[in-house]
Each structure stands twice: as structure tokens, then as C-alpha cells.
């Protein structure tokens, strides 16, 4: 079976899509599959898509890639489709390989009309495995709701993925539930496995050999959001304030569970305005505080972030971007909040903006964001997106990993009294900071323009001075922040690709493929989005015959910044198609331009 983008034994790199209507449990099954596979020692990447409705009729696809090697992208084409419902799965067949596998329910409750059954759409070459998912589910759990677990039993048998590993994962997944729930789900799994072993003629080559690699039961299969929460905790977060919004809510939920044990507090506020208010207030009080939201919430937060910039209060804001504008596409990914993150404010409001490129960096950069916020006394916005927030990867926590993005402790100067100037003008722009509770250093802060002592002052020279001071902090940061990651051969490049955030995985894959086809291709991937790494971009640009900017939005928000910085036209490979920008799109764009 021809498989996905990375090399590796074809029989042990598989993209499994579990598709159903929302409520069919495709996502839950995907989670168990990931955990099971990771526990067996494989690498997994998972990216689900599900509708805003809890139940109802939207399509919901758990997308897992399981491989013996580390995975860069989830892959677009599936090797195996587990069809928990027919109408949605039929549409999903388009993203299944020509020799892909379909596991379907051979005994639904009623007949499908012609062409309404996924099994009827299998193309010659595809392999269909009909299993009475519904009946077996009913046998195990007295209902149709465990079809997903039955299907996992089939997957386990079919691909030689250790059944005990699945049982372990099911046990963990339903760990909080009653013994009966665990047992009946394991029974459902067993029935699926046994039925497959009894009834199916295996006709596909995927085989993990039923041999787990070294078992890694302490592996964390986490989403970007979970990694972010861990980053917050490891950074010493004291106050989290938030308001539920897809796809950021999970961060609050994880912190709600874990933060109290560390002495931190989670406040669920009545709205996002209040949430950022809490955060800025807490920052003013000298504590590490954070919030997470998505585009619509960020809109509400802008005025308070602006306040934080003006009053020089540390704060960490994670923006899990989703499709917009307005309420938009709550469950679809997009990288379209870059402009609001950098520029959204009244007046000129400079603040750092970071963007991790994979789940591990979600952890590292969130952790680092607290240090930057505190060192430079400013709100820091970290740009996630739905794809990063919800996709899962196997991650091992490492504090050292965060430090590859710099260390900023030396900016934490101790303030001295007599006379204390909260906003003293310095070379770095950073003024020694005091906060409530410190004796002899009392001062006001304000969203009004102010002088060095924090007193309102609208004079031209003061405003100029203070604007420059605030801007200078970012220049200091830029100078200190490590140079952006550059990949590819040294010297001149035929194609250079600039990308950021979650699109970097696809960009790297594209470079790899282009290089394999003989092209000199390379890339530059900044994590610090603002202040813009202009010198590095210019230097890279100078080496490139063609400069591409790849991002998941429709106007090319970062491309515009790159154009400004490099004084050249770039090729925008950008598309907001309710899914991550695929490798193939970048590759095709490069090939098209280059012939």
C-alpha cells in the first residue's frame, strides 16, 4: 500500500479516518486509537474535525496517523476509513486512497436507497470489510452507541495492532466511568476483534506485526491545548480567567482540573472582557496570569490588551484561531487572526506575538510567553489554531525545550526607591517594575498616556518618548530572540518557503518532496511573529529565486508583512478552505512557478 508523505515501511505507516455523524463517537474512538498506538510505542498524529452541534447531523472525522517514525503532518489521504455512518462516509471516500480500506456496518437498521451506502461506493481496488457493528454493539452494550469501539476491535485485528494495547487504552479512556462502562466497552472491542478474526478475509497489506515496540505507557498523547495548559502550569501560572469558546475551552478544562493542585486559580468569567480584565488585574498584582480564547473572544479582549500594553502589564493570551469573520466556522481551522493579534488596537500598541508550529512547541512557547511577558512587561499573544489546538501528538515534556527560545531573566531588574519611576526611560525600554505589596514603591498605572511616574500626561514630548520606549522593548526582544529556523541547503535556492504556525509541517514536507525531485528548496519558519524578524527574512529572501509564503488564510496576512520587509513580491500560497493548507498545495505552487 502506497502510504503518506514520510518514508518508512509501507505496512506500518497508516492514516486511519473514523467518520460518522456527530455523536457517533468517531472522535472518542480516534482518541483511544491514538492512545493505544502510542502506548505500543508508535508515533501518532491526530487531527479531528467535528461540527459545532453537539449531536445533530454534522460530519465528524477522527483522523489518526500511526507510524513507526515521527510524523510531520497528518496526511490528507486516508489508508483506512472506518465508516460509522454512511452519508458522511461516502463523501469521505474522496480522501481515501484508490487501494484504501473501508470498514463499514454490514447491518444497519434499515435499507439504504441506491447509492446511499458507503459499501456500494467502494471502487474496484478498494477493500471493504463489512462487520455488523450495530448488532455487535447491541450485544455488548445494549445499544448502538458502541459501534465505534466495536470498529476498533476490527482495526486491531486487521492491522495487527496489539489487542491488549487497545484494552489498556479503553480502560484508561473510561477510567472515570463505572466498572460496567469499562467492561461493556471492552466487551464491544472484543466482539469486534473476534468477529473480524472469524469473518474477515484479510486482503490488505497493512500489518504492524502485532508486536508492540517498547511499551511507553507514560507517554502523553496530547493536543496543543493540553500542551498549552501544561506550559502554563510549568510556567507557574497563578490565575487563569476564561470564557468557554471553541476551540480554546479545553485549555480551561485542563487547567480547571490541574491548576488548583499547584495553588493556582481558575476563574470562569461571564465573558471575555471580564476574562482579560481579570488577567490584566492579576498581572498588575504581580502574578502570572493567562487567558485563552478564539477570534470572537479576542475581538472583545482587544481593549484590555491595549490597556495592558499602555500600562505595561504582563499577560499571556492564547488565541486558538478558527474560521472567521464573526462567529464564523467554530470548528474549522484558519490562521486569520494574525493581523488582529499584531495590530488590533486603538492607537499604536506594540506587543509580542508568538506562534508554535507543533504540539511540542505549544508547550514550549506558552511557557516562554510568560517569561517574555514578565521580562518585557507586556501582554504576549500566542497564536494557536484549531488544527494545533485539537490535533494530538505524542509528547515528552521538557523544560529545556522552552529555553531554545531564549532566556530573559536578566531583564527582571529589582526596582529601587527614591525616587521610583515606574516607567523610567532605559536603553532596553524595560523599566524596573514594582507591583502591589512592595513597600515604598507605590504608584498608579493607567490607560491614559503617562509620564515616567505613571501620572497622566498628554504632552507631545512625553507621548513621543513613551511611544518610543514601548516600541524599544520589542526591538530588544527581537535582538535577543534566537534567529528563525531555516531549513534546506546553504547558498542559493530555487524556491524559498516562508511559513508559520501549524502550516510549517506541510511546508517542511513540501520542501522535502521538492528536494527529492531535485529542486533546491529551503524554508524559513519564524516562531516570533511580531516583532518581525526583518533581517533574517531579507537575508533568506536574498538567497531565493522564488519566495513563497504559505499560510492557512485567504489574503496572505503574513505574506503582506514579508513583502513589506523584503521589498519584493512573494507568491502567496494561502487558502482558507476549512482545513489545514495541504502539503500538495505548496508543492504544486512551487512546481507550477518553477515549471
Amino acid at each position, binding site marked *: 500500500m502506497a502510504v503518506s508523505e514520510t518514508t518508512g515501511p509501507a505496512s506500518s505507516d497508516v492514516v486511519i479516518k473514523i467518520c460518522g455523524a456527530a455523536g457517533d463517537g468517531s472522535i472518542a474512538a480516534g482518541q483511544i486509537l491514538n492512545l493505544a498506538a502510542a502506548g505500543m510505542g508508535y508515533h501518532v498524529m491526530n487531527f479531528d474535525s467535528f461540527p459545532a*452541534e453537539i449531536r445533530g447531523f454534522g460530519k465528524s472525522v477522527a483522523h489518526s496517523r500511526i507510524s513507526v517514525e515521527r510524523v510531520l503532518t497528518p496526511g490528507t489521504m486516508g489508508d483506512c476509513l472506518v465508516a460509522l455512518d454512511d452519508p458522511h462516509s461516502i463523501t469521505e471516500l474522496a480522501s481515501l486512497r484508490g487501494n484504501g480500506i473501508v470498514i463499514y456496518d454490514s447491518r444497519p437498521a434499515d435499507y439504504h436507497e441506491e447509492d446511499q451506502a458507503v459499501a456500494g461506493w467502494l471502487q474496484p481496488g478498494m477493500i471493504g470489510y463489512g462487520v455488523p457493528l450495530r448488532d455487535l454493539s447491541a450485544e455488548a452494550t445494549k445499544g448502538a452507541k458502541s459501534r465505534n469501539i466495536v470498529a476498533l476491535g476490527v482495526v486491531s485485528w486487521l492491522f495487527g495492532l496489539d489487542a491488549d494495547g487497545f484494552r489498556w487504552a479503553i480502560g484508561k479512556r473510561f477510567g472515570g466511568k463505572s466498572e460496567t462502562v469499562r467492561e461493556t466497552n471492552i466487551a464491544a472491542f472484543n466482539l469486534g476483534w473476534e468477529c473480524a478474526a472469524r469473518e474477515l478475509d484479510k486482503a490488505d497489506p497493512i500489518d504492524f506485526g502485532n508486536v508492540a515496540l517498547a511499551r511507553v505507557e507514560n507517554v502523553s498523547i496530547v493536543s496543543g491545548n493540553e500542551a498549552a495548559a501544561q506550559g502554563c502550569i510549568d510556567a507557574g501560572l497563578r490565575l487563569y480567567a476564561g470564557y468557554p469558546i471553541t476551540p480554546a475551552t479545553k485549555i480551561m*478544562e485542563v487547567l480547571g482540573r490541574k491548576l488548583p493542585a499547584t495553588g493556582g486559580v481558575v476563574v*470562569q468569567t*461571564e465573558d471575555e472582557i471580564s476574562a482579560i480584565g481579570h488577567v490584566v488585574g492579576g498581572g498588575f498584582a504581580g502574578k502570572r496570569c493567562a487567558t485563552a480564547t478564539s477570534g470572537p473572544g479576542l475581538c472583545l479582549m482587544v481593549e484590555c490588551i491595549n490597556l495592558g500594553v499602555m500600562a505595561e502589564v504582563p499577560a499571556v493570551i492564547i488565541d486558538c484561531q478558527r474560521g472567521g469573520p464573526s462567529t464564523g466556522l467554530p470548528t474549522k481551522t484558519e490562521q486569520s487572526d494574525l493581523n488582529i493579534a499584531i495590530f488590533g488596537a486603538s492607537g499604536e500598541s506594540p506587543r509580542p506575538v508568538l506562534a508554535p508550529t507543533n504540539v511540542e512547541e505549544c508547550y514550549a512557547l506558552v511557557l516562554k510567553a510568560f517569561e517574555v511577558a514578565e521580562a518585557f512587561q507586556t501582554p504576549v499573544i500566542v497564536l494557536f489554531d484549531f488544527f494545533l489546538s485539537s490535533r494530538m501528538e505524542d509528547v515528552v515534556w521538557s523544560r529545556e525545550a522552552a529555553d531554545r527560545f531564549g532566556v530573559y531573566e536578566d531583564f527582571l531588574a529589582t526596582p529601587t526607591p527614591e525616587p521610583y519611576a515606574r516607567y523610567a526611560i532605559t536603553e532596553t525600554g524595560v523599566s524596573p517594575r514594582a507591583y502591589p505589596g512592595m513597600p515604598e514603591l507605590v504608584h498608579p498605572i493607567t490607560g491614559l498616556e503617562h509620564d515616567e511616574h505613571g501620572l497622566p500626561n498628554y504632552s507631545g514630548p512625553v507621548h513621543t518618548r513613551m511611544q518610543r520606549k514601548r516600541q524599544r522593548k520589542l526591538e530588544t526582544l527581537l535582538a535577543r530572540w534566537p534567529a528563525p529556523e531555516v531549513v534546506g541547503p546553504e547558498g542559493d535556492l530555487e524556491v524559498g518557503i516562508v511559513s508559520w504556525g501549524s502550516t510549517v509541517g506541510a511546508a517542511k514536507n513540501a520542501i522535502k518532496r521538492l528536494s527529492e525531485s531535485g529542486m533546491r528548496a529551503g524554508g524559513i519558519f519564524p516562531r516570533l511573529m511580531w516583532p518581525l524578524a526583518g533581517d533574517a527574512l531579507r537575508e533568506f529572501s536574498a538567497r531565493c529565486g522564488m519566495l513563497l509564503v504559505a499560510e492557512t488564510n485567504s489574503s496572505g496576512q503574513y505574506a503582506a508583512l514579508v513583502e513589506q520587509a523584503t521589498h519584493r513580491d512573494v507568491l502567496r500560497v494561502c487558502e482558507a478552505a476549512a482545513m489545514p493548507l495541504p502539503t500538495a498545495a505548496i508543492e504544486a505552487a512551487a512546481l507550477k512557478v518553477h515549471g
Partner: protein
Amino acid sequence: MAQDPTTLGGTLNAEIVADISAVQQSGLLDYRSEELPTWCPGCGYYGITQALMQALADLHIENRNLAVVSGIGCAGRMPFFVNGYGFHAIHGRALPVAQGVKIAKPELTVLVVGGDGDGLGIGGGHLPHAVRRNVDLTYVLFDNGIYGLTKGQSSPTTPTGQVTGSHPYGNPDRPLDAVTLGLAYRASFMARGYAGKPHELYPIMKQALEHRGFSFVVAITPCVTFDKVNITYDRLRESWVPIPDDHDTSDLGAAMRLALSDKLYYGVFFREDRPTFNDNVEDTSGKARE
């Protein structure tokens, strides 16, 4: 065959025959859109919708003059399921948007729907002012004590101690009571009903729609997906008591005492006729022309 459920028989069947034709003749189907609601099966919102549509049908409100405004949340989906002009606006801002609609085009019947998070959380600040202006809206608050659409976090009306996604160790906050709030703000029509008893909810809805001024209906409803413990059909079924017949709906103090009592009363707590915002607009413009 399966296509033809046969519920036959003279004695056995008389009821269903009569009931189906009653539904068809009631006119309530005219207020439904073609799309089936996407709420979870079993959701109390269906009961509220049923009562609401019965009331709309009874009052023969023309579809073209019906505006349904909502914010974000499960209840926010309502405009998609109603055959009328719907505005699925943004989170918490249904009331400001709806006020704009009504003020700009007073001949519309403006129905505002939203959940407890939308109305008492993010949009809580708008409520007193909509009440204060007495814009002639009917505001139905679908109160299920949970954030359903984002999959089960605490809302402003989640009972204290309830374990939710955002409060894994139990919700520490005291829940708001929408009725007490509405009375404190002095909504010119304040009522409460229960989704599981559409027959009792329907006359309340009808009165609310008929009322001139801001009518505030709190509809208590279970979320069958994310709250299987507190606000459930089984628990609510037992605890409902009608407001006593001798209650004087013009007595705000008495209404407040009912609202504060331990019993879960349904019915109209308070109503008064006072000039609506649009009345005042006319008044003001009259004055200005003088």
C-alpha cells in the same frame, strides 16, 4: 411493511387520528422551518419550541412579521428552526440587536431567545437596560444551567457544586436566579415555565407574546447530554408547582416572595402595563414636533 406503521383499531386508534389532525389544523407547523432542529435528541428545547409555536399559531402572527433574534449557544440555533426572519447574532448581544430591530420597525413581533450563558453571562449587562427601556420584546431564556454548545462548562445558573468541564472539582459559584433578577429589574412581564410540560408553558408564552412591553420568560430545561444529575427531567417533574390562583400579578413584592421561596413555581409572577420604548419614542417625537 415498515413504511406503514399501522396503528389501527377503532378504540385503539381514535385518539391518534384525532390528535394528528389537531396538530395539522393547529397551524403550528407553519412556524417551523423545513430543517429538523439539530439539538440533541431529548433536549428540553423541543418542549419550549413546541409551546412557543403553539402560542404563535394561536395568535396568528404572520410569518413575515416575526423576527427571531438570538445570540450564540444551543438556543441560539433557534432562528434556523423557525419560519420567520431570524438573526443569529453574536454571543451575548442578542438583546441589543433585537432592541435595534424593534425600535427600527415596531410592527414586527420580536422574539429573543438565548441560553443562560448568553443572557446572564456574557450578555448579562444588557438585560437590565432592555428591561429599563421596556422595549416590546419577548425574551425567552432557555435556562439549562450549562454551556451545551461548547460541551458542558459551568454557566451562570449551574447549581453550586455541580461537576462540569470547567469545574472538575465542582462549581464554587452560587447560581443566578433569572426570575429574581427580572423582578429586581422590574421587567414588565415576568414568568417561568418548564420545558417538560409544554401544556403549561404554552399559555405563558401566549401571554408573553401578547404583553406590550418587555416580557421575560424563563424556561427551565434539562440538558440531557451534559447534566445527568441536577437539572434532569426526573428531578424537575416532581418539583413543579403552579403559582397559586390568588397571587396578585401586579404585586411586585408578592412576586419576589414567590421567586425567593424554595418551591419551583411556574406561571406569571408579575406584569404591569407601562409605556414601551416605542411609546416613548412617539411621545418624544410628538414633543419635538411641538
